[in-house]
């Protein structure tokens, strides 16, 4: 079944989160900042939608979470990639690239 628009958006967000976490474990706010930085401000992710996405990923066992203290001595929930998650990054990235190429090819023909 071809992905619906919200599926795509959700799927995109999931991918971005996973990719961000390949660098290092991070808490929710940190992830949102990294996405913003690395996209050079283009992707202004609705920060609230991060948390449902993080929950989804955790339910799919692609990331795990643990409460830790930050440098400023505050408590925050840190997320890490699991082994399955690391594998998923590659698979999802490939799928994304295929999707982009498909859209591109359609746009070029018209």
């Amino acid at each position, binding site marked *: 079944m071809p992905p619906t628009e919200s599926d795509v958006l959700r799927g995109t967000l999931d991918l971005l989160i996973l990719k961000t976490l390949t660098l290092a474990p991070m808490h929710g706010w940190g992830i*949102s900042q990294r996405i913003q930085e690395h996209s050079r401000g283009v992707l202004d992710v609705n920060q609230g*939608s991060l*948390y*449902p996405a993080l*929950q*989804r990923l955790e339910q*799919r*066992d692609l990331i795990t979470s643990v409460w830790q203290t930050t440098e400023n001595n505050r408590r925050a929930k840190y997320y890490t990639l699991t082994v399955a998650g690391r594998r998923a990054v590659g698979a999802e990235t490939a799928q994304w690239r295929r999707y982009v190429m498909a859209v591109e090819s359609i746009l070029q023909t018209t």
Partner: protein
Amino acid sequence: MPIKALRLRLRALLQRDAVEQELNDEIRFHIEQETEKNIRLGMSAHEARRQALIVFGGVERAKEDYRDGRGDRPLADLRSDVRQTLRTFRRNPTFVAAVVTTLALGIGANVAIFSAVSAVMLRPLPFPQPDRLAMLWEDNDEKGWSQQTAAPANMLDWQEQVRAFSGLAGYQDFFEQSSLETPTGPRVVNGVAVTGGFFNVLGVRPALGATFTEADTWASGKRVAVVSDQTWRQHLGADPGIVGRTVTLDGRPVQVIGVMPPDFTFPTNDTGLWTPIAWDPADRGQVWFRRGHWMRPFARLRDGVTFEQARTELQTVMGRLETQYPATNTRMKAGLGPLREFRVGPTRTPLLVLLGATGLLLLIACANIGNLLLVRAASREREVVLRRALGAGRGRIARQTLTESFVLSLMGGAAGLALGWWGTRALVALQPAGLLPVADVRPDLRVFTFVLVLSTLSALLFGLAPALWSARRNAVDILKESGRTSSESRRMRRWGNALAIGEVALALMLTVGAGLLLRSFWHLTRVEPGFESRGVLAVSLAFHPGRYQELAGVTGFLQQLRARVGGLHGVDGAALSSRLPLSKNTGWTSDFAVRGQPISETSREIMHREVGPGYFRTMRVPLVSGRDFTGTDRAGAERVAIINQAMADQHFRGRDPVGEMIAFDREPDTTSIWHRIVGVAGSEHQKSLGEPPRPEVFTALEQTPRRGVHVVIRTATDPHLLVPAVEGVISELDPGMPVLTAVTMDDAKSRSLARERFLATLLLAFASVGALLSIVGVYGVVAQLALRRTNEMNIRIALGAQAAQVRWLVVRHGLTLVGAGVVTGCILSAALGGAVRKLLYGVGPLDPFTFVVMPACLLLTGLVASWIPAVRATRTDPAGALRSE
């Protein structure tokens, strides 16, 4: 669902608050970080926070999405629904109390009766593979025998010849009361003699020690017994070393070889002792061994054999025996059926009738509650409209109403279970002895499931209607209404009326049922038992061979006893009899022949009793013709007999039987003993008031002595007062003689009616509750309508109508409801009357008296119930009513 996801959801479910708190913390942290970032970028604290929130994009929305992902939305909704429901209940305690009480009554009654049904009819017998056990019997259409006891010789032949049985055993069908010596004195124990394979065929193992073997069927010299758990605890001190101990039973030493487990109650639930039947092998070939019928055999079917196959084989064998032994077995047939049927049979109809009654009661209760809920739903319509306006969906509101119904029904169900548990205990405690063949009647798993199902069904039944109602209504219509008649409120009135009519119909069925049973009982109490029961004491004694080797000793004792007791102060007369009327032990029967009369084809069975002189006078049984026994009728003198009126009517139509000769063989020969009939006495009811007296013959006790004797004593005062004096005389004559029982004949008569009384009382109780509920329901509907029409009625009065006329409107409404309900109920009762036919005596299921009186009672109560709201409605100030319009 993957493990991780499951674990997370479970955690979310079980540690709700902790998870919620975590989410809050996480989001708070996020906002704080963003705020700090903004401050670093130069915004003011206030602006920084504001921007952070904007960028986050809706905290609540995020939380909602998060919670949705958790998948516990329906549960959260349920929780909030329940909380809302409880809040509402707190504000309307009377409503809740009314509903819960009504439902508790309905369900409680069902639980009590269903516990009995479950224990008696559904629970499997406590034997291994109980459905392979069959009860065997003999039939004889010539004598009118059906499911009768079997002759021992026949029984033994079945055991040897019927291949379909893997084992056969039997018990003696009269229950002897034995006297057991305990440290605290002699105690009466109900004993039964059984064949050796009794316990093995049933497949039960003893709790202590061992049971009998096949060899115990035949006399072996040693005297052994197996005791019940109750006997062991109550009379033998629960001695763990009881196995092998010798106790004194009926004056003789008996060794206890085993104790049975507590739930073993075969053949009856008051059997305390089992002894081996210990036949003499020489008796095996005797004619009387095949002629007398006193055994109840049962058998275990071999694996793979059906009841049909076993029955066929049994009948084939019996056919063979009929040709082999024509003297005893002519026209004797055999039959078998599942053991459970035999045990349960007599209680099935009463139990099912009671279950039906409680079912009706529950329906009435539900109708009542339905009405209450309907009214409530109608009164909350504006609130519902408001909620709809605020965005609640139709489904949500219906769900709310349904939740209320379920919570109510759960509460009612729990209360009903408690009430029912108590009711079951009351039922068991108050039942006439032995009505329920099972000792242990308790709400079990089946009953709990039953209650759950009932509660759920009730919830659906009276919850769905208001729920559908609430969901269907149009908001605009509701707001437009101001309480006057409209199409919707007319619809509600119709529903209310229909429910009230239904309730009354059901209540009528209950009251008619109760009325029929009461009338039956009343008829039974008016049956003449054939003797005068007031003022008679009956004391029973047993002369066991241990103490009285020779029968002459028995006779001597009894003569002295009669003389001494007859001389006691307050005693008008004393006599002896081997059996009492209206008792379970109906004694023995035989064939008979009258000299000079041809052998007829009609029923030729006659009951026997041995009595001493003066019996008929003491019991005030009329002597219709001839004379009573006297002192001259003793051993060695000519054999005499007295027959009862039933026998005279059947076989001596028109002629005077006195002087005829009678013998107790089918075809008399030279060994027959001929008796001269010297008198005809009135007929006593031998077994129960409900069964007509059967032909009976009395022989002189001194000529045919017996070891079990009752002494009947007539007094002008209370017979109970005589007991110590009589016991004193007995112990003077023989200090060790135990008195087995001492009852007054009044008590015996009352006890013989115990079943019918119990059943009628129970049904009356249910019917009363049902009638009360239904009248309350009618009152509710009538009062409600009267309330709505108060203004209209006051206007009428103000405009000149008589108060009485206006009141009549209300009363007419009530009477119409009750009338319609009564008519419907009568039709239903007439249709279903056949169900109780078996329980009735002296009345038919369509008894006109009952069908007139019960509806009249309901109409009367309905009149009263309608009168009250009528009066109340017309009491308010008419002028004020006009003003408030």
